[in-house]
Protein backbone atom coordinates (compact mmCIF):
# COMPACT_ATOMS: atom_id res chain seq x y z
CA UNK A 1 0.00 0.00 0.00
CA UNK A 2 2.73 2.38 1.01
CA UNK A 3 4.77 1.61 -2.08
CA UNK A 4 1.69 2.13 -4.20
CA UNK A 5 1.05 5.53 -2.64
CA UNK A 6 4.63 6.58 -3.21
CA UNK A 7 4.45 5.33 -6.77
CA UNK A 8 1.35 7.24 -7.71
CA UNK A 9 2.54 10.37 -5.98
CA UNK A 10 6.03 10.36 -7.35
CA UNK A 11 4.99 8.96 -10.68
CA UNK A 12 3.01 12.07 -11.27
CA UNK A 13 5.46 14.73 -10.27
CA UNK A 14 7.48 15.51 -13.31
CA UNK A 15 6.07 19.01 -12.76
CA UNK A 16 7.05 19.62 -9.15
CA UNK A 17 4.56 21.79 -7.23
CA UNK A 18 5.59 24.29 -4.58
CA UNK A 19 6.07 22.80 -1.14
CA UNK A 20 7.79 19.59 -2.29
CA UNK A 21 11.31 20.97 -2.43
CA UNK A 22 13.29 22.65 0.30
CA UNK A 23 13.79 26.29 -0.44
CA UNK A 24 17.56 26.00 -0.89
CA UNK A 25 17.11 23.15 -3.39
CA UNK A 26 14.51 25.15 -5.32
CA UNK A 27 16.59 28.33 -5.31
CA UNK A 28 19.79 26.55 -6.39
CA UNK A 29 17.94 25.10 -9.35
CA UNK A 30 16.36 28.46 -10.15
CA UNK A 31 19.84 29.92 -10.46
CA UNK A 32 21.26 26.99 -12.48
CA UNK A 33 18.31 27.04 -14.87
CA UNK A 34 18.41 30.81 -15.30
CA UNK A 35 22.12 30.73 -16.18
CA UNK A 36 21.64 27.78 -18.54
CA UNK A 37 18.78 29.57 -20.32
CA UNK A 38 20.88 32.69 -20.83
CA UNK A 39 23.72 30.53 -22.10
CA UNK A 40 21.35 28.70 -24.48
CA UNK A 41 20.02 31.99 -25.74
CA UNK A 42 23.57 33.12 -26.47
CA UNK A 43 24.48 29.82 -28.07
CA UNK A 44 21.61 29.34 -30.51
CA UNK A 45 22.87 29.64 -33.98
CA UNK A 46 21.37 28.86 -37.31
CA UNK A 47 22.05 29.63 -40.91
CA UNK A 48 18.36 29.73 -41.54
CA UNK A 49 16.46 32.99 -41.83
CA UNK A 50 14.41 34.11 -38.86
CA UNK A 51 11.27 33.71 -40.99
CA UNK A 52 11.96 29.99 -41.32
CA UNK A 53 13.28 29.53 -37.83
CA UNK A 54 10.31 30.92 -35.90
CA UNK A 55 7.69 28.51 -37.32
CA UNK A 56 9.97 25.51 -36.80
CA UNK A 57 10.83 26.24 -33.18
CA UNK A 58 7.36 27.68 -32.50
CA UNK A 59 5.44 24.71 -33.87
CA UNK A 60 7.61 22.16 -32.07
CA UNK A 61 7.05 24.08 -28.81
CA UNK A 62 3.31 24.44 -29.35
CA UNK A 63 3.03 20.79 -30.33
CA UNK A 64 4.80 19.75 -27.14
CA UNK A 65 2.55 22.01 -25.08
CA UNK A 66 -0.59 20.29 -26.33
CA UNK A 67 1.01 16.82 -26.27
CA UNK A 68 1.73 17.34 -22.57
CA UNK A 69 -1.98 18.05 -22.03
CA UNK A 70 -2.87 14.55 -23.17
CA UNK A 71 -2.87 12.42 -20.03
CA UNK A 72 -2.46 8.77 -20.92
CA UNK A 73 -5.14 6.75 -19.24
CA UNK A 74 -3.25 4.50 -16.83
CA UNK A 75 -5.45 2.44 -14.53
CA UNK A 76 -4.92 2.92 -10.83
CA UNK A 77 -5.02 6.63 -10.37
CA UNK A 78 -1.71 7.84 -11.67
CA UNK A 79 -1.11 9.70 -14.87
CA UNK A 80 1.60 10.29 -17.38
CA UNK A 81 2.08 12.25 -20.52
CA UNK A 82 4.55 12.74 -23.32
CA UNK A 83 7.47 14.91 -22.18
CA UNK A 84 8.87 15.97 -25.52
CA UNK A 85 12.24 17.37 -24.50
CA UNK A 86 14.16 14.52 -26.11
CA UNK A 87 12.23 14.96 -29.32
CA UNK A 88 12.76 18.73 -29.29
CA UNK A 89 16.47 18.19 -28.77
CA UNK A 90 16.93 15.81 -31.69
CA UNK A 91 14.81 17.99 -33.97
CA UNK A 92 16.12 21.41 -32.98
CA UNK A 93 19.42 20.80 -31.22
CA UNK A 94 19.90 21.18 -27.46
CA UNK A 95 19.96 24.99 -27.19
CA UNK A 96 16.77 25.60 -29.14
CA UNK A 97 15.21 22.64 -27.32
CA UNK A 98 16.02 24.09 -23.89
CA UNK A 99 14.42 27.40 -24.86
CA UNK A 100 11.42 25.64 -26.44
CA UNK A 101 10.81 23.48 -23.36
CA UNK A 102 11.41 26.39 -20.98
CA UNK A 103 8.78 28.39 -22.88
CA UNK A 104 6.28 25.55 -22.54
CA UNK A 105 7.03 25.30 -18.81
CA UNK A 106 6.78 29.02 -18.18
CA UNK A 107 3.36 29.17 -19.87
CA UNK A 108 2.21 26.06 -17.97
CA UNK A 109 3.30 27.56 -14.66
CA UNK A 110 2.22 31.18 -15.10
CA UNK A 111 -1.06 30.63 -16.92
CA UNK A 112 -2.23 27.18 -15.84
CA UNK A 113 -0.62 26.72 -12.43
CA UNK A 114 0.98 23.47 -13.63
CA UNK A 115 4.15 23.18 -11.55
CA UNK A 116 5.08 25.49 -8.70
CA UNK A 117 6.25 29.02 -9.22
CA UNK A 118 9.19 28.64 -6.82
CA UNK A 119 10.09 25.28 -8.31
CA UNK A 120 10.02 26.59 -11.87
CA UNK A 121 13.82 26.40 -12.01
CA UNK A 122 13.69 22.77 -10.87
CA UNK A 123 11.08 22.00 -13.49
CA UNK A 124 13.07 23.71 -16.23
CA UNK A 125 16.15 21.79 -15.09
CA UNK A 126 14.33 18.43 -15.02
CA UNK A 127 12.05 18.79 -18.03
CA UNK A 128 14.13 21.01 -20.33
CA UNK A 129 17.86 21.09 -19.55
CA UNK A 130 18.48 17.50 -18.40
CA UNK A 131 16.44 15.62 -21.03
CA UNK A 132 17.55 17.90 -23.89
CA UNK A 133 21.19 17.29 -22.95
CA UNK A 134 20.71 13.55 -22.53
CA UNK A 135 19.00 13.27 -25.92
CA UNK A 136 21.76 15.29 -27.57
CA UNK A 137 24.48 13.04 -26.15
CA UNK A 138 22.58 9.84 -27.01
CA UNK A 139 22.09 10.97 -30.61
CA UNK A 140 25.81 11.73 -30.89
CA UNK A 141 26.63 8.19 -29.75
CA UNK A 142 24.34 6.37 -32.14
CA UNK A 143 25.31 5.68 -35.69
CA UNK A 144 21.81 4.61 -36.64
CA UNK A 145 19.93 7.78 -35.91
CA UNK A 146 16.45 6.26 -35.87
CA UNK A 147 17.46 3.77 -33.19
CA UNK A 148 19.17 6.66 -31.46
CA UNK A 149 15.88 8.58 -31.49
CA UNK A 150 14.19 5.81 -29.50
CA UNK A 151 16.95 5.75 -26.91
CA UNK A 152 17.11 9.56 -26.82
CA UNK A 153 13.40 9.70 -25.98
CA UNK A 154 13.54 6.87 -23.49
CA UNK A 155 16.71 7.82 -21.62
CA UNK A 156 15.83 11.51 -21.53
CA UNK A 157 12.76 10.61 -19.46
CA UNK A 158 14.62 8.14 -17.22
CA UNK A 159 17.41 10.57 -16.37
CA UNK A 160 14.90 13.40 -15.83
CA UNK A 161 13.02 11.11 -13.44
CA UNK A 162 16.26 10.36 -11.61
CA UNK A 163 16.76 14.08 -10.95
CA UNK A 164 13.16 14.53 -9.79
CA UNK A 165 13.77 11.66 -7.37
CA UNK A 166 17.04 13.18 -6.23
CA UNK A 167 15.63 16.67 -5.66
CA UNK A 168 12.53 15.52 -3.79
CA UNK A 169 14.55 12.89 -1.89
CA UNK A 170 17.11 15.35 -0.55
CA UNK A 171 14.38 17.81 0.44
CA UNK A 172 13.40 17.42 4.06
CA UNK A 173 9.88 18.61 3.27
CA UNK A 174 9.32 15.38 1.35
CA UNK A 175 8.67 12.41 3.61
CA UNK A 176 10.90 9.91 1.79
CA UNK A 177 14.59 10.05 1.08
CA UNK A 178 16.56 9.25 -2.04
CA UNK A 179 16.81 5.55 -1.15
CA UNK A 180 13.13 5.37 -2.04
CA UNK A 181 12.45 8.31 -4.33
CA UNK A 182 15.19 7.61 -6.87
CA UNK A 183 14.45 3.89 -7.46
CA UNK A 184 10.70 4.54 -7.60
CA UNK A 185 11.07 7.35 -10.11
CA UNK A 186 13.66 5.60 -12.26
CA UNK A 187 11.86 2.23 -12.42
CA UNK A 188 8.47 3.76 -13.07
CA UNK A 189 9.76 6.06 -15.80
CA UNK A 190 11.97 3.32 -17.13
CA UNK A 191 8.70 1.62 -18.05
CA UNK A 192 6.72 4.71 -19.09
CA UNK A 193 9.70 6.11 -20.95
CA UNK A 194 9.49 3.29 -23.49
CA UNK A 195 6.31 4.92 -24.81
CA UNK A 196 8.18 8.24 -24.99
CA UNK A 197 10.94 6.47 -26.92
CA UNK A 198 8.52 4.93 -29.40
CA UNK A 199 6.74 8.24 -30.04
CA UNK A 200 10.08 10.03 -30.41
CA UNK A 201 11.27 7.36 -32.86
CA UNK A 202 8.05 7.59 -34.89
CA UNK A 203 8.06 11.37 -35.21
CA UNK A 204 11.78 11.49 -35.96
CA UNK A 205 11.43 8.81 -38.64
CA UNK A 206 8.47 10.60 -40.17
CA UNK A 207 10.30 13.91 -40.34
CA UNK A 208 13.47 12.25 -41.57
CA UNK A 209 16.02 14.10 -39.47
CA UNK A 210 16.79 17.38 -37.78
CA UNK A 211 14.69 20.40 -38.64
CA UNK A 212 17.39 22.98 -37.98
Amino acid at each position, binding site marked *: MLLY*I*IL*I*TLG*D*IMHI*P*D*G*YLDIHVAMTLNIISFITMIYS*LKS*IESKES*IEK*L*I*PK*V*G*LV*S*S*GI*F*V*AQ*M*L*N*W*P*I*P*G*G*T*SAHFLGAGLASILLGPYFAI*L*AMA*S*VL*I*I*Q*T*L*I*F*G*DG*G*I*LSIGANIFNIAIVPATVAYVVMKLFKWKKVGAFFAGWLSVVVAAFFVGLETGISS*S*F*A*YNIAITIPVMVIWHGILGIIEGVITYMIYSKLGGRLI
Partner: protein
Amino acid sequence: MKRAIVTILVLVILTPIFSYLSELVEYSEPLENVAAMLNVEEKGIYSGIIPDYRIGFLNEYISSIVSAVIGITLTYLMIYIILKIKHAKK
Protein backbone atom coordinates in the same frame (compact mmCIF):
# COMPACT_ATOMS: atom_id res chain seq x y z
CA MET B 1 4.59 23.07 -41.94
CA LYS B 2 0.97 22.57 -42.94
CA ARG B 3 1.18 19.03 -41.63
CA ALA B 4 2.52 20.25 -38.31
CA ILE B 5 -0.39 22.64 -37.89
CA VAL B 6 -2.91 19.92 -38.74
CA THR B 7 -1.22 17.55 -36.26
CA ILE B 8 -1.40 20.17 -33.52
CA LEU B 9 -5.08 20.81 -34.24
CA VAL B 10 -5.80 17.08 -34.06
CA LEU B 11 -4.04 16.95 -30.68
CA VAL B 12 -6.17 19.89 -29.49
CA ILE B 13 -9.35 18.03 -30.43
CA LEU B 14 -8.01 14.95 -28.64
CA THR B 15 -7.53 16.74 -25.30
CA PRO B 16 -11.13 16.31 -24.09
CA ILE B 17 -11.13 12.68 -25.27
CA PHE B 18 -8.01 11.92 -23.27
CA SER B 19 -9.35 13.68 -20.21
CA TYR B 20 -12.52 11.58 -20.52
CA LEU B 21 -10.49 8.36 -20.87
CA SER B 22 -8.36 9.29 -17.88
CA GLU B 23 -11.52 9.69 -15.83
CA LEU B 24 -12.73 6.29 -16.93
CA VAL B 25 -9.68 4.68 -15.35
CA GLU B 26 -10.23 6.67 -12.19
CA TYR B 27 -7.71 9.37 -12.74
CA SER B 28 -8.37 11.69 -9.85
CA GLU B 29 -5.57 14.17 -9.30
CA PRO B 30 -3.69 11.67 -7.16
CA LEU B 31 -1.09 14.17 -6.14
CA GLU B 32 -3.41 16.20 -3.97
CA ASN B 33 -5.16 13.13 -2.60
CA VAL B 34 -2.15 11.33 -1.24
CA ALA B 35 0.17 14.25 -0.66
CA ALA B 36 -1.20 14.60 2.82
CA MET B 37 -0.27 11.01 3.60
CA LEU B 38 3.27 11.70 2.48
CA ASN B 39 3.55 14.62 4.81
CA VAL B 40 3.90 17.16 2.04
CA GLU B 41 1.58 19.92 1.22
CA GLU B 42 1.15 21.44 -2.15
CA LYS B 43 1.63 25.00 -1.03
CA GLY B 44 -0.45 26.83 -3.55
CA ILE B 45 1.10 30.24 -3.37
CA TYR B 46 0.17 30.76 -6.99
CA SER B 47 -2.37 28.77 -8.93
CA GLY B 48 -2.23 30.48 -12.30
CA ILE B 49 -4.71 32.49 -14.32
CA ILE B 50 -6.50 29.35 -15.56
CA PRO B 51 -5.86 26.85 -12.73
CA ASP B 52 -5.76 23.20 -13.83
CA TYR B 53 -6.73 24.11 -17.40
CA ARG B 54 -10.29 24.77 -16.21
CA ILE B 55 -12.19 27.85 -17.19
CA GLY B 56 -14.91 28.50 -14.62
CA PHE B 57 -17.96 29.00 -16.74
CA LEU B 58 -17.17 26.34 -19.36
CA ASN B 59 -17.58 22.60 -18.97
CA GLU B 60 -14.35 20.66 -18.55
CA TYR B 61 -14.14 19.34 -22.10
CA ILE B 62 -14.62 22.71 -23.75
CA SER B 63 -12.26 24.13 -21.12
CA SER B 64 -9.50 21.79 -22.17
CA ILE B 65 -9.87 22.74 -25.85
CA VAL B 66 -9.88 26.47 -25.07
CA SER B 67 -6.93 26.04 -22.68
CA ALA B 68 -5.02 24.12 -25.33
CA VAL B 69 -5.60 26.87 -27.89
CA ILE B 70 -4.56 29.56 -25.41
CA GLY B 71 -1.46 27.58 -24.37
CA ILE B 72 -0.39 26.88 -27.94
CA THR B 73 -0.80 30.50 -28.94
CA LEU B 74 1.12 31.83 -25.94
CA THR B 75 3.92 29.27 -26.33
CA TYR B 76 4.30 30.18 -29.99
CA LEU B 77 4.23 33.87 -29.14
CA MET B 78 6.92 33.41 -26.54
CA ILE B 79 9.22 31.67 -29.03
CA TYR B 80 8.43 34.41 -31.54
CA ILE B 81 9.44 37.13 -29.08
CA ILE B 82 12.59 35.30 -27.91
CA LEU B 83 13.84 34.71 -31.44
CA LYS B 84 12.93 38.23 -32.60
CA ILE B 85 14.86 39.77 -29.71
CA LYS B 86 17.81 37.47 -30.36
CA HIS B 87 17.71 38.36 -34.06
CA ALA B 88 17.48 42.09 -33.36
CA LYS B 89 20.52 41.92 -31.10
CA LYS B 90 22.61 40.35 -33.83
